[in-house]
């Protein structure tokens, strides 16, 4: 793995928004590498900057927001500051993103078949010839994609509108749209949050299957550590706009090093050991306006000290793990 070049490399990304309450630093110095074929989980609570980070990658940050610094490289190509025109040829074709809420992300006035076909007609060079020919070819591909995401009787269902689909099927349609051009990188933003566990398992296994057959990389944005534990190779934990811990999933979840990751894991009831009491993290996520330079977690941390009021940098603690804490491992439990 050390030899391979990362397919996506985010370094020191800063994304800010000007609001009437002040300057919001939604993403503050995020660095993350994704290797080809890898599945990386990004976990964090609402407002931790997960979605904004990847909206930045997709070039979807529009005023009053802007990327204030850092770089995003996709296969070596710099994306920050790229023209909208170049972005258009990239999005959907090489990098695809599925949005969190499948009902609002699909256009209710267009059939689902058309919404997949649109991507193919825009990007797929194999679909050529006369207009009629192109539509015929694209339609065949649409059916193929719908079969891939296991929609029953795709020939008839492609003429249906999003409201005629269940939540799980809509989410699978989103995945079909995202995968239509066989991208190299899929960013799945909370693909299963709105779904029941049995459907969640179906969707996540589908993503894993397709990842293996197409050899693409996947970034799975979620707030569910269980999902990360089962489906991701590596994990990055975000808090208040920063990555505070990252590393191989097993080792991060088995031996969390940052007090926030530890607290998060203690907050989840353990089904295997129900007598173990949960211990919530007290307090709330800080407002992202006018932040102090120190550690973002300081107000909720049990082991804070004087030095935590200074800026805390990411530190390498070996075995591919990094942590943003001045005393990592200080209180591994």
């Amino acid at each position, binding site marked *: 793995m050390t030899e391979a070049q990362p397919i996506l490399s985010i370094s020191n990304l800063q994304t800010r928004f000007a609001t009437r309450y002040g300057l919001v630093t939604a993403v503050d110095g995020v660095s993350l590498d994704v290797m080809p074929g890898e599945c990386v989980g990004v976990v964090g*609570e*609402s407002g931790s900057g997960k979605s904004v980070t990847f909206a930045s990658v997709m070039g979807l940050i529009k005023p009053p927001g802007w990327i204030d610094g850092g770089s995003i490289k996709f296969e070596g190509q710099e994306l920050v500051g790229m023209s909208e025109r170049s972005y258009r040829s990239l999005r959907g074709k090489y990098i695809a993103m599925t949005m969190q809420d499948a009902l609002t992300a699909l256009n209710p006035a267009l059939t689902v078949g058309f919404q997949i076909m649109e991507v193919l007609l825009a990007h797929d060079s194999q679909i050529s010839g006369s207009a009629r020919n192109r539509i015929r070819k694209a339609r065949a591909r649409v059916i193929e994609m719908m079969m891939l995401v296991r929609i029953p009787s795709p020939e008839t269902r492609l003429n249906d509108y999003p409201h005629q689909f*269940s*939540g*799980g*099927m809509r989410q699978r349609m989103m995945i079909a749209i995202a995968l239509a051009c066989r991208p190299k990188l899929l960013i799945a933003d909370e693909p299963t949050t709105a779904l*029941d*566990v*049995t*459907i*969640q*398992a*179906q969707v*996540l*296994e589908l993503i894993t299957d397709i990842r293996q057959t197409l050899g693409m990389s996947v970034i799975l944005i979620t*707030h*569910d*550590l*269980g*999902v990360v*534990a*089962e*489906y991701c190779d590596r994990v990055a934990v975000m808090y208040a706009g920063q990555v505070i811990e990252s590393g191989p999933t*097993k080792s991060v*979840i088995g031996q969390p090093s940052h007090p926030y990751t530890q*607290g*998060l*894991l*203690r*907050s*989840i*009831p*353990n*089904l*295997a050991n*129900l007598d173990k009491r*949960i*211990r*919530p*993290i*007290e307090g*709330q*996520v800080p407002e992202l306006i006018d932040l102090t330079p120190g550690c973002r977690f300081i107000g909720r941390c049990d082991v804070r000290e004087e030095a935590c009021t200074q800026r805390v940098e990411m530190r390498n603690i070996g075995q591919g793990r990094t942590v943003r804490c001045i005393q990592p491992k200080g209180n591994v439990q």
Partner: protein
Amino acid sequence: MNKAMKCTAGTAEQYVLLQVNNLVKHYDSRSGLWGKITGNPGSLVQAVDGVSLTINRGETLGLIGESGCGKSTLGRAILRLHEPTSGSVTFDGTDVTKLDADSLKKMRRRMQIIFQDPYASLNPRKTIEDIIGTALRLQGVAKSSDIRGCVTQLLENVGLKPDHMTRFPHQFSGGQRQRIGIARALALNPEFIVCDEPVSALDVSIQAQVIQLLDDLKRELGLTYLFISHDISVIGYISDHIAVMYLGDIVETGPTKQILTDPQHPYTQALLSAVPRVDGSGTGDRVKLTGDLPSPINPPKGCKFHTRCPYAKDECQLKKPEHHELKNGLTVACHLVTGN
């Protein structure tokens, strides 16, 4: 009146507080005026289809199931927020379904609900004092001069500050709003609370705070909960007993430990094995379900689960399974689990 400590703590003896018998809630749109105008025949939604449950005083019954299975409708039908179609709900010896409006209003002091969405369930135009105090005023349990004192006490009980009283809901975070919803449910000093997905809208760390609050309150005030959730780890943590619901029916009930470690109904098995586990213990022989939950408008005949059941036999399509009580305390409605 001191709201907090009036109730005695939960008693040790088994005492049935709530008995639900064959409760049915159908939503019928077949005979409406709109149907006559448009010629649309309408439909019969069989949201809750003959559910029986027992909850002992001081215990928590966890009700779990996928969205659309009728969990919330059941919770609301028990409180008569939705009028049940048939069946009975016996609360402490009184059949709630037969009460007239006056007696029902009195009964509501003893039965309350916490709603799912803390953003939609608080009136944005009212202060917190109004939101929590309204029930006290309407029920006439506190004089208007005492209401402020009661609200102060309630806010402290749920971990908020008394000076939050003059604020409006939008000034609070999701977790704080849910605390307000809990304070409102506690205002009348109830014995029984339906918690309808009280933590689903919250982040993990905040979710844990609210679960712990509900658990502490239950112990301190001797409350009895019907806890509705789709999250098995939350249900497993807070419940003494669990009932698993599928498409309007209860398919399996039993003590939490038995349900979680040795579930008998194929649906419970599938539901449990679909949960991703942090410790990785859930992987391995996963019982996979295909397809979606069928519509309660036209539920499958026989066992409603047979369309998705990996073990379904011919019998399952023809006959609705009866509830069998097994030796280990589970009650299961499945043709393949007979208990012998």
